[in-house]
């Protein structure tokens, strides 16, 4: 018998899970700090600012050139072919690689600077503009992926090909939960208003990969069963369920007495937690107790379950309940054509609610330990896809630079980080790679991205593979 350290930890971990009410990830943490005694979140890192993350993922690739990365020089180059000196023969997607020309399309939207920080934003994001001074705007995020599936898989799992655990699963594994009645990692999905089919999502994006499946994200859905199979069948009262569970626990206990299998105790505990979730989840999802002015802050959509606005409000409620990682996906940002029309619709879906979330967290004092991230899997090209006309254009995928913003715990608010060239095509200063972003997010949570590893197929895997640097300037 020669268990490795890691395996021994997992063993105890499994038994630890159902029984402990707090600090569930402690066992995994001990591997991060190499001291079993230091099994507490607080001791992970000198001073982790963030306790939880709300990740507002904009699936499809929002156009940085029409939202955040202001390039006034492009106006005078409208329709010109993108110079080879800028494009440098980089690979393009199969959708535009056959185009004869790459005409520059300048944005149709007006930009202005906002707040004391003077962060640039387009007219499509008026509410977000109002929280400019709370934001850390990164204009130089970059990725090698040029298509949706590999790009979004890269952002969420640190690898372009399927098979790795997602960011939330890593955090569940590494930090565990602080709420014994709700999952540690919750996913909320909304559909965009743009007129084209939304790009697909995949359950692997919130999957556990090779981590134990208890770390996979739990999709909270609008409707009767926010969590799959949450509700008792019609006709089964709460009393009936309680009675059934009591009988079940008693019988399972008899089984335990005979077989001495600790797994049976765990199962008893899991049924208890399931029972608690039957109350705690609807409670978390029920916004009827929210005052009107709070709901109004998130905008009219907030009253329609399943919208991005409603999901933002839920995200705040889940954050209040100490859910570790709340992942939103808003679909529909893939503007290959009809960008002016569709981008306006998409921005309308998210602008007010994203800003409201930050404001709401702030007024509750929760922004100090909650990290909010807003961004997609890549940006969009400066050149037009399809016909460029006076009032219409489209943009293909562009991974070489694009913008995201972060707010809350630990971020350097008011900062605009990184510079792109006059075409918004290449980075000229301070690049932030996908791995860097993930390393930085982990750092803000007090986790050393090089130490959060899991042994699989003989290798110690981590979210950032063998890459990634914490970008210190992003952190206050």
């Amino acid at each position, binding site marked *: 018998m020669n268990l490795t350290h890691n395996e021994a930890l997992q063993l105890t971990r499994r038994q630890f899970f159902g029984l402990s009410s707090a600090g569930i990830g402690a066992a995994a943490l001990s591997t991060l700090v190499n001291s079993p005694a230091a099994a507490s979140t607080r001791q992970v890192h000198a001073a982790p600012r963030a306790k939880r993350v709300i990740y507002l993922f904009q699936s499809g690739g929002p156009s940085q050139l029409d939202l955040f990365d202001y390039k006034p020089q492009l106006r005078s180059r409208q329709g010109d072919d993108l110079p080879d000196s800028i494009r440098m023969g980089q690979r393009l997607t*199969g959708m535009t690689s056959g185009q004869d020309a790459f005409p520059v399309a300048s944005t149709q939207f007006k930009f202005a600077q906002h707040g004391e920080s003077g962060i640039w934003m387009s007219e499509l994001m008026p509410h977000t503009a109002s929280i400019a001074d709370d934001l850390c705007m990164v204009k130089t995020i970059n990725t090698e992926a040029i298509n*949706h599936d590999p790009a979004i898989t890269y952002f969420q799992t640190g690898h372009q090909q399927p098979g790795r655990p997602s960011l939330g699963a890593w955090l569940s594994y590494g930090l565990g939960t602080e709420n014994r009645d709700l999952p540690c990692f919750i996913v909320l999905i909304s559909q965009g208003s743009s007129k084209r089919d939304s790009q697909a999502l995949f359950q692997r994006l919130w999957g556990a990969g090779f981590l134990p499946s*208890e770390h996979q994200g739990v999709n909270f859905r609008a409707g009767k069963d926010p969590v799959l199979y949450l509700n008792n069948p019609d*006709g089964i009262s709460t009393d009936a369920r309680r009675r*059934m569970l009591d009988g079940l626990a008693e019988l399972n206990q008899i089984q335990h007495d005979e077989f001495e299998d600790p797994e049976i105790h765990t199962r008893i505990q899991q049924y208890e937690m399931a029972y608690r979730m039957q109350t705690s989840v609807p409670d978390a999802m029920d916004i009827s107790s929210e005052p009107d002015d709070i709901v109004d802050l998130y905008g009219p959509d907030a009253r329609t379950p399943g919208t991005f606005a409603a999901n933002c409000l839920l995200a705040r409620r889940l954050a209040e309940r100490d859910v570790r990682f709340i992942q939103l996906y808003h679909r529909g940002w893939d503007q290959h054509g009809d960008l002016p029309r569709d981008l306006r619709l998409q921005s309308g879906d998210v602008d007010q609610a994203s800003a409201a979330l930050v404001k709401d967290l702030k007024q509750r004092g929760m922004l100090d330990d909650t990290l909010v991230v807003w961004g997609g899997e890549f940006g969009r090209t400066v050149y037009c896809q399809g016909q460029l006309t006076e009032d219409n254009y489209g943009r293909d995928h562009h991974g070489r630079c694009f913008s995201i913003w972060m707010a809350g715990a630990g971020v350097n608010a008011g900062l605009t980080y990184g510079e792109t060239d006059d075409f918004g095509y290449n980075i000229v200063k301070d690049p932030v790679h996908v791995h860097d972003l993930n390393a930085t997010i982990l750092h803000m949570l007090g986790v050393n991205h090089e130490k959060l590893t899991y042994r699989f197929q003989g290798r110690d895997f981590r979210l950032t593979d063998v890459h990634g640097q914490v970008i210190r300037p992003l952190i206050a």
Partner: protein
Amino acid sequence: MQRLYVFAIIALTVPQGAQFAAAVDDPDPTGPVLSLLRELQAKPDELESVAAQLQDRLSKLKADAESSRSMIEDTRHALADQTDAQTAFFANVEKLERALATAKDSLASSETAALEAQNALTELEAARTSIAQQIATHETTLRLVAAARDKRSKEATSATPPPSDVPVDVLAAPSKPVGFVAALASLKENTTATTAATLDRIAAAQTAVETSSISFNRDILPILSNHCFACHGPDAATREAGLLLHEPEGAYGHLESGSVPVVPHDRDASALFNRITASDSNDRMPPADFEKPLTADAIALLSRWIDEGAPWEGHWSFVPPKLPKLPELANANWSRNDIDRFVLARLEREALAPTPEAAPRSLIRRVTLDLTGLPPTPEEINAFLMDNQPGAYERVVDRLLDSPRYGEHKARIWLDAARYADTNGYHIDNERHMWPWRDWAIRSFNTNMSFDRFTVSQLAGDLLPEPTQDDLIATGFNRNHMINFEGGAIPEEYHTQYVVDRVNTTGTVWMGLTVGCAQCHDHKYDPISQREFYQLYSFYYNVPESGLDGNDGNAKPFIQVPSHDEEVELNGIRAYLGLADLAAAVPMPTIDAAQDEWEAKWSKSFDNRWSVLSSASVTGSDGETFTTLEDHSILAGDENPAQTTYEVTAPLADSVVSALRLEVLRDESLPKGGPGRAENANFVLTDFEVEILRASTDAEPLSIEFASAAADFSQKNYEIAGAIDENVESGWAGLGDNSPRKRMAVFIARDPTHIEAGSQIRIRLKHNSKSAGHGIGRFRLSTSSDESLAPSRFGNWYTNGPYRAVDGKTAYDTTYEPETGIDLQATYEDGRMKWVETTPGYEDGKVHRLSGDIAATYLYRTINSPNSRTMQLALGSNDAIKVWLNGEVVHDNNVERGFTLDQDQVSIRLIEGENALLMKVVNYGNDYAFSFRKASEQSSEIPLNTELILASTDRDESETRKLRNYYRERYSPVWQRIIAKRDELREREKQIVAKIPTTMVMKEMSDPRDTHVLVRGQYDQKDKRVNPATPNALPPMPDGSNANRLGLAQWLVDPAHPLTARVITNRYWQHHFGTGIVKTVEDFGAQGERPTHPALLDWLATEFIDSGWDTKHIHRLIVTSATYRQSSQSTFDLNDRDPENRLLARGPRFRMDAEVIRDSSLFVSGLLVERQGGPSVRPYQPPGIWKEVAYGANFTAQVFEPDVGDNLHRRSMYTFWKRQAPPPNMMLFDAPNRETCVVRRERTNTPLQALALMNDPQFVEAAHALAHRMVEDGGENVRDRIAYAFELATSRPPRDREWRILLDVFEAQRSEFMITPDAALTLLAECDSTREGAAELAAYSVIANLILNLDETLTKG
């Protein structure tokens, strides 16, 4: 096949032929006989003569019958001859194909040999360089050693020099690459003195294996691998300081610095010890920034290892397993088979005792779940309890191994390894169809296919000498990977992923190696270089597939998999179709005679139609001369220019010219007898132009335009139409692959031309093709005045509409007034609708937009035909279209579709004179358009080209056949029946073929792709070219095997392969015990776990091989062992000592897999539908799960529609697996998402599992069904009923205490439902029950739900 033909000939053709032969001469042979009899009665005096006549008549009939019979015989013989000839022909083809294949093979192998030679040369060069470097290093070492020795001897110490010679076999540790041993041996020869010290230390290390308490493999390798190999291991690219610790030569050799990493028995002299214990953090290894510091325990172990002589072993899993000696045991009675001896030996060493055997009920439950994936029934349990004869348990095992459920259960486990799914994965995630492969896997387990055959079939079934359909289906294993279809993705990038996936999967499933680590760089821990990864890659890179092919259904290559019934039916159909072809050539005397008559009649009328041009004058353009022969034909001679125009001028006798005929004739003076002037006797007539030179000479010549042309034969791509089109170079040629023959062509004028008397005709035969010298050799021209040859004339289009309607169907179905009769002057709908003549008219063959949305529009025109004839129209419409001719519906296509030209082909029958054509085009919404075109028309009964054949007197075989077919199809009722049947069967064949499922397979490209090492694994970064080969650290491929997939598969199951048998039996062990003997079933490399029972694993592996890779045999051995039969009861102490039961001091106990849990619930409740195989099914899942993430309805498998009926209750292995959003109640219980290969599932215990088991409609429904079962079959009282359900679920009756708990819940629940009857009815509504006693039934349902949630129900224990 031949027998089938003969059978079918007799069954189908002959009876019909006989019937035909008897019927043709006299439509009713009995009629005359009857009338004769009547005469006989009326006039008895004429009896004699009538009797004689009757006699004659009868003999004649008899003779007819005889001749019919002999004709049948002849037919039969003729057919037999045909069949023989065909067989001989196919045999020849086959022979040729074989010869071709052999030639190709030898070409390929000589190419491969050349390449291999080149590679070998490169490697040799590299080896030479490396040896030279090593020599240099060792010389340096030698100098340093010598210096040190000098220094030491000067210091007058007593150090003795190391022994100077070490036997070579000491070096040949099994794990060492042969190449290195050889290199080292030669190195030793050259530099014995320089390496002596290193070799000495290696020898010491080898010896220490015997004496040391430390196991290198168990204790040291994991530390070195985990903490050191990243910089000092197999990956040459990241190696630091020239130090390699994965080979003894590195560990005991000299570094450039002169220091030695490991000196046996001398920790202070060992650089390794000094560096791991260095106090200066800059010197200490591993470096701090590596983030993997050594624990104090590890340092202690390494130190002790050096102290005890630093024993070194080859990596255990790379040494082929040998049948181990059976251990000596203190307790000799416990073991049931040899497995137990190894387990008990370990327990005795640990001072542990095995747990007593499990109770019989536990035992039969455990083994039934393990072998079939379902619990035993109470009847099976009772039968076992009642069987007191020895071997009762073994009989149960045999029964289970024979059960078809066994194959399903084992195949289900294999699906994870094979990453089986029903969608293509990646972005769009369309549906695919691989279930024929799944069915194959089930069959293979049930027939206990030997594992080596199972392996070869899946990896290379297509390359077997005579692959069966099953062999081909099996290769789908390597096509189960994901396939992309994202719009902008780059095909090569994904093609690379597919091949990488195959390599990784083979590595995991058969070799237990993480070969995928070497995709981007040399493996960090195991001896697999990046180059070797791509050598494996190249085995799988020769599939004719494309990178982005996951659009819909299966991606190429795939095969059709007909069911048995389909195959039988297709064989029958194809036999008949072959027969119909043969029958066409068989003479049918009566009909053939009728044909002769018909031919004579037609050729006469045909001849009458033409007037041969005589007294013509001819000129050529470049030096030819022309001779007019007696038959008025013209023969060209002398010069044969490259291009030329013949100009013929002749007086005209007729007053009308409606067509011209050109006969191209043979002549002895021409090459090969003509008819062309080219060497091969061919000609190309590029243009045929005709003018009338009017009698009044000053008038312009009148040129004749042609509407169409026909020829008795046109060479492919040289159609006759080319002679009258605008293109100067296109033209008519008549040779083809036939032997040279005379040819005939007819040119039909657009309008019959009336000519004043005395006019002349001028004809130009132009030869302007690229083929030089292809003039016509001899020809004759005729004209015809027959106006019936002229084409029909079309009137202008009139339109009427649009008539709007609520929807397209209504518009189509409504009879608007224009349909009721054509009156171009009439107005409809209060004058709003009327006929409008189109200006400019709609041009034929073009798309024309119509206006209106959801409406009908009418179009009308006349067709004026010179005689009654048929015409073919080609129509396009968006959407529906209906056509009337002269008031009759001739086409009726109510369809919603996009527009393309010529979508519908319509044949119409015109009457002589004016015909009225009405079309109704209906729009279902959006685009609205139509097109109209005459495809062809036949001016006479017989098509022109057939007529030309008719006119010819010396037909060749193909012409004779064409004519015969033509005649028989029209005039022979027997033949018409054969044709009708043939067409019907062809249609049926098409339908069957369209319905036959397909499955993806592997296939080799005849022209293999070049494989290159890909730098950092990037698809577009190609480095050196490599050939298929297996890794060097493993034994070579067996002699005589090819470097292809077949060779790879044979190599994997070669008894000399150290990994396969171990890896597979280890996973079989995992099936039963939950954990493998090697826990990391997917990794037998340096980073993997060591086996807990190495000798047992070797014993199982050798037993597996020796049994002929008999899978059932291994399962039987495991489940009949005493080890397996132990009770799974544990104790606090044992849990503490061995929480994972790795020592096997108790029986296995763990939660069952997702599929087993669901299947068992359905089984226990009586819902399970046990139908084996077939397409995947869609049982309940919460709504919206697909839609929430899916792309859009334009693709398949994007919208979930649950099945109904039986398909809701099939075993879970048949549940439709969508990779993007797999079945949730499977995923919650740790099923993998099937994106990549998985051979070990996690086993978690979560609240979401509890929610699913309590509330998932599938489990709720199972509880209802179980409640019904309790009431109906469980006896009369509550106690019995509860006990019944409890036993169904747990395989044992409840104890009193347990029963009381259940009863309490039941009573309380029943009381609650008595007070709230609505709740009881609501609960039961889902199973359609509203009868009396709902409260009680609902309470039973709650109890059933509780029982189905018991830990014991979910656990195999």
